[in-house]
Every structure is written in C-alpha cells, then in structure tokens.
C-alpha cells in the first residue's frame, strides 16, 4: 500500500503537464455539445413545441465549434487532448488533424441544414418519440468517430452512432421500417463485431490502441501475415459500414424506409464514417499493407461504382434510386484510395518518396518528378493525389447526398408519391425546387461547374498517372451512367407534365406528411445552404482542394499527428 505522497508522485508521472487554454476544449466541444443538447431535449420530452427552438441553436453552436476547430487545425496543425489528462498512450486521446476536422465540419454543416428541414417536416408524434435527441446522439457518435485518436474509442463511437441511428430508423414503427431496421441492424452488428475482434488482434500485436502510437510502431514491424490479416479484416469491416461491393446489399434494403430527413442524414454521414475510418486505419496506420491491398481496393471500387450506377438506372422509386447513388459515390471514393498504392513497386516507391519529401523541409524540390500532375494539387505524389481526391469527393458526397434526399423529400411531399412513374410537372409548379434539384443532380453526376466535377477530375488524372487507366475509365463510365439516371429523374419527376392523377390513395407513400404543402422557408432554406457549398466548391475549388491536400499529406506522413500526441502538442 502506497501512502498518499507516493500516490501523488505516481500521479505526477502519469499525467500530462502543461497549461490549458480554453480553446483546447474545441477538440472535445462537438461531442460534449451533442450530448448536452441531446440530454436536455430528452428531459423536455413532453414539450415537443420547444424542441426545434433548442435543437436548431444547438446545431448552429455545433457548426460554430466545428468551424473554429477547423480554423485552429488549419492554422496550427493537429490538436490533441488527452482525456482525464493521462499521458499517451495510456490515456484516451482525442486527436484532430485536417482530415478529421474537414469531415466533422462538413457533418456539422449537413446536420444543421437537416435540423432546419426536420423542423418543417417531422410531425409532433415523431418529435415526441425523440427525433431531435436521437439526432444529437447520432451526431455525437459521428463527431466522436471523426475526432478520436484511439482505435477502441473509434469502436465506441461507432456503437453510439449506431444506437442513435437505430432510434431514427424505427421512428414511426411502420412495418417497412422495422423490416429495413432489422436488416440494417443485423449487418451493422456483424460489421461492428468484426471491427471489435480485429481491434482485439491489433491490441494483442501492438499492446496499444493509440493511433499515433500504432502509426509510429507499424513501420518497424516486419511486414508478415499478421499485419496483413488485420488490414484485411479492417477493410472488410469498414467496407461493410461504407456499403462497398460485395457488402453493399444492406443499404438499398433499408435506407428508403425512414423519413426523408433521416435517409438524408444516413446517406450523407453514416457510410462516410466507414470511409473515414478506413482512411484513418488503412492508410495512416498500415501504409505498407494498404499498398499490398491496393489492387483489391481498385477492383472493389470499380464494382461498387458499376453496381451503384446500374442499380440507379434500374430503379423507379426516387429514394431507392438515390440509395444507389450513395453506393456509386462510395465506389468513387474507394477508387481514390486505390491510387498510389496500386502498381506494386512503383506505387509504394512513390509513397515512400512522398514521405521523404514531406518529412524534409522542401517538399516541392524532392517531388519534382511527380510535380504538376494536376493544376489543383501541384507537387503531390500519386498517393496524396488519390487521397486528396477521395477526401474531396467524400466531403462533396456528404453534402450532395443529403441535399438530394432532402430535395427528393420535398418533391415527394408535393407530388404525394416517390415513384417516378406517377410524379411529374414539378418544374412548372415548383421552379425553385426544380432548379436546386438540377444543381444537385449535376453535382452528383460530376458535371461542371458544380462540386462533383473537380474531385472526379483529380481522381481520373490520378488514375492515369498511377498507371490504372481502367480505373479512370470506370469512374468516367459511372459518371456517364449517373448522368443518364439523373436525367431520368429530372425528366420524369420535373420536366414532363403531371400524369393523369390516379384516384387510388397513395398508401405506398408511407414516408410523407398527410398535410399538403411543406413550409417553404423551412424546406428551401437548408437546400439553399447546401447548394451554396455545392456551387462554391464547384466554381472556386482551390480553397477546398488546398485543405484536402493538407489532409492527405497529414495521412501519408503522420509525423505531425504523432508529434501532436507525444510531442509538445499536449
């Protein structure tokens, strides 16, 4: 038994030292805000009329905290906060680098827009069942997953966001919803269990779960089967979360059942959390194994894209069609992750060159050979270009998919159905909505001048540079097929005259309010907000490309990340 002075000495040794500025709390603020607001709303569960007035300022505050965090990370590099002030790698670290900050900010932006939209479209009963508390819980989980610097903690945030999403999914307790929720829950639980088992292996091998610690140690490990096994298991687990082929079948089976707002949040955020986790674990922690797996990822990407594009062409229900757009987007992101590592020796040599270059003081000089690949990302290696393009595309996809579901929700409410067969004439009755929908459809197909064009451009250029022309061709073909599918949506639902009204009441339209027209302000404002991003990132992409480039460099060479955890950062 140690007496109290011994304990004090031991504690002093185990704790981090150094002064804290209040701005350091920005690292934890998004998560803390979500739980605080979620809990307050849950306590006020009877006062459903107050919910929007608390929730919307709450999401605005969340977005403000995210933006401040992004600014801080952009100006002074990765930020770390150790939970409970314990020293790394023993304490749980929250580490935010550019990648995490970009994702969390985009998530906050999308959630803010969705909350405004939900105010106008959720009925009192659904608010009573806890729409906003569940949404805050889910956003807390999503933010935590983007911010954490610990693999097990990442698992916990996945669980938290899943619990929130289960709640949102069954809101309303319709038969179809329970059916969709069962598939969704089961597949996600399988993926989460796989994630947990793999994390157990990881801990057995490394004796640590701190990402910075693992990134530091993995390079010194012999590249034997054990690390590759872990990498493959993570690829399967996160691929399932992200709905990559051949584990994509749960998404079209469940995402069309809840409310449009809920679908929008799911489509925008949840699959991207899987993508983010894959980037974080596979590219930052196991770059060698990623290089070995790159060809496999390229095939997965190609098939995911094609399945998404063909699936979208085959659907006649607006939301099922959008489900396949999500999958095609995931395939495009995966294509970016395959660049750089692929091509065997050449790829990994490039990666190593990039590491050497970014570690050195003058990165531009060393990468002279690979310089000027694209005008957007001067002086980058193939790996950085692919990752940067993938990040850019993921951020674009978060915003555009959310926007598409919200716009589709509004269109379906006005038309009273979500079937392309019976929709029509919306161009004439809702010109503003039709214009916005056109913007989003252009963006999702990757047509200029909107946000989908530039990341696809970066990715296609990157694939050709990396010697994977067939992958670039797949991206282009997918873009073409998605353009056709988008044109079909627009032509059928908006452009043509309304078909003869069918007298039969639309029972299939279980996702809609019985009360006719939605409030124009609450529905249009979030769409305009999201469209602003789409247009801004399409017309002037350089600011976003610079940030995603920084994020990609931070992943390829995690020295700054590791330094923020173990160095003077804390």
């Amino acid at each position, binding site marked *: 038994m140690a007496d109290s002075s011994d304990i004090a000495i031991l504690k002093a040794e185990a704790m*981090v030292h150094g002064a*804290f500025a209040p701005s350091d709390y920005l690292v934890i603020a998004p998560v*803390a805000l979500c739980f605080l607001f979620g*809990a*307050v709303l849950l*306590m006020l569960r009877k006062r459903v009329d107050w919910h929007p007035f608390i929730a919307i300022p709450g999401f605005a505050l969340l977005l403000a905290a995210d933006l401040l965090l992004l600014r801080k990370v952009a100006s002074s590099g990765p930020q770390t*906060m150790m939970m409970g002030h314990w020293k790394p790698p023993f304490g749980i670290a929250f580490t935010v680098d550019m990648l995490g900050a970009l994702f969390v900010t985009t998530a906050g932006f999308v959630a803010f827009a969705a909350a405004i939209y939900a105010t106008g479209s959720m009925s009192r009963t659904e608010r009573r069942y806890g729409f906003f508390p569940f949404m805050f819980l889910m956003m807390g989980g999503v933010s935590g997953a983007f911010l954490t610097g610990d693999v097990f903690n990442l698992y916990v945030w996945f669980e938290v966001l899943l619990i929130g999403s289960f709640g949102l999914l069954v809101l309303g307790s319709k038969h179809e919803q329970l059916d969709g929720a069962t598939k969704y829950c089961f597949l996600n639980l399988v993926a989460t269990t796989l994630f947990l088992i793999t994390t157990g292996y990881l801990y057995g091998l490394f004796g640590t779960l701190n990402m910075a610690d693992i990134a530091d140690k993995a390079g010194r490990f012999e590249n034997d089967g054990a690390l590759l096994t872990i990498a493959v298991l993570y690829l399967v687990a996160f691929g399932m979360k992200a709905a990559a082929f051949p584990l994509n079948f749960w998404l079209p089976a469940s995402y069309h059942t809840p409310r449009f707002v809920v679908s929008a949040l799911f489509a925008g955020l949840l699959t991207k959390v899987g993508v983010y986790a894959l980037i974080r674990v596979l590219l930052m922690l196991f770059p060698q194994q990623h290089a070995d797996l790159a060809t496999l990822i390229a095939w997965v990407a190609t098939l995911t894209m094609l399945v998404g594009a063909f699936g979208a062409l085959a659907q006649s229900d607006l939301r099922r069609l959008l489900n396949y757009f999500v999958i095609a987007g995931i395939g495009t992101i995966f294509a970016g992750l395959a660049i750089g590592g692929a091509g065997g020796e050449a790829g990994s040599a490039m990666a190593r060159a990039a590491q050497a270059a970014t570690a050195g003081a003058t990165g531009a000089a060393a990468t002279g050979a690979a310089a000027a690949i694209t005008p957007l990302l001067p002086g980058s290696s193939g790996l950085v270009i692919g990752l940067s393009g993938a990040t850019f595309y993921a951020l674009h996809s978060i915003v555009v998919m959310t926007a598409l579901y919200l716009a589709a929700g509004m269109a379906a409410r006005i038309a009273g159905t979500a079937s392309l067969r019976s929709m029509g004439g919306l161009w004439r009755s809702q010109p503003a909505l039709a214009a916005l929908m056109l913007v989003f459809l252009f963006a999702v197909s990757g047509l200029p001048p909107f946000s989908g064009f530039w990341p696809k451009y970066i990715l296609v250029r990157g694939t050709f540079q990396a010697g994977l022309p067939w992958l670039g061709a797949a991206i282009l073909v997918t873009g073409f097929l998605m353009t056709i599918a988008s044109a079909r949506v627009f032509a059928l639902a908006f452009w043509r005259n309304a078909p003869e009204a069918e007298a039969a009441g639309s029972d299939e339209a279980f996702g809609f309010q019985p009360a006719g027209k939605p409030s124009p302000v609450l529905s249009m404002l979030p769409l305009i907000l999201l469209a602003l991003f789409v247009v801004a990132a399409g017309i002037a992409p350089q600011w976003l490309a610079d940030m995603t480039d920084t994020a990609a460099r931070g992943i390829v060479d995690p020295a700054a990340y590791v330094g923020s955890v173990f160095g003077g950062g804390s």
Partner: protein
Amino acid sequence: MRTIIFRFTAPYLTALMLLFSIFVLLRGHNEPGGGFIGGLIAASAFAIYGIACGVAPVRRALYFHPMAIAAAGLCFAVAAGIVSIFAGTGFMTGLWVFPKIFGTEVALSTPMLFDIGVYLVVVGGISAIALALEERESD
C-alpha cells in the same frame, strides 16, 4: 405473480435494494461496485415493485419519466467532464474536494459525479424498458 406474500414484501424489498444500490454506487470508486451495477440493482428493484403492484404505482413513485432520469444522468456525466475546464486541465480530469461535514471528511469528486450520471442513465434506461415490457404484459 400477485400473491399476498409477494405483494406485502415487495415494497420492503424495493426499499432495501434501492438503499443497497446507493451503497454499491458510492463504494465503487475504490472497491467493486459503481454506477453501472448500482443502476442495475436499482432498476431491478423498480422492476420487482412493478411486477408486484403494477406499473402505474411505479411510475407514480418515480415521479419523473424514466427517460428524463436517464437524460439527467447524461447531463451529470457531461458536466463532470466540463467542470475541468474551470480548473484549466484536460477534459474529464478527476478533481477532488474534501469538505468537512459534521467533523467527517467527505471525498467529493468529478469521477463520483460521473458515476452518479452513469447510475441515473442505467436506472432510467433499464426501468423504461422494464416498465414498458411489464405494461404490455398486463394489458
């Protein structure tokens, strides 16, 4: 299940179990116990009361809705983390005060506040589920 013996003993049993759950909660910092197991004991106490005397008396006795109790617990847990901002240390750093109450030193800390939060979350969450199940059965 509504035998006279069970109905007679259930309130006493509930009171005892609640007392025991608070004991388990408070000893949890240094010895086996804590908020989670304490909360489970308390929730099973309410479940027993519900089985014996019906759900309505339990809801009356709880006064607050179980979910509101869980939410309050979540607030406590977040507050326990945020307190450290005023001490200028990292999120969730354990902070202790030792006030003398009636001549006895009482150790109060943010880990305790967090544990009370966990206790309330578990009590609220599990009771809500248990009461909903019992309600369905008695219909």
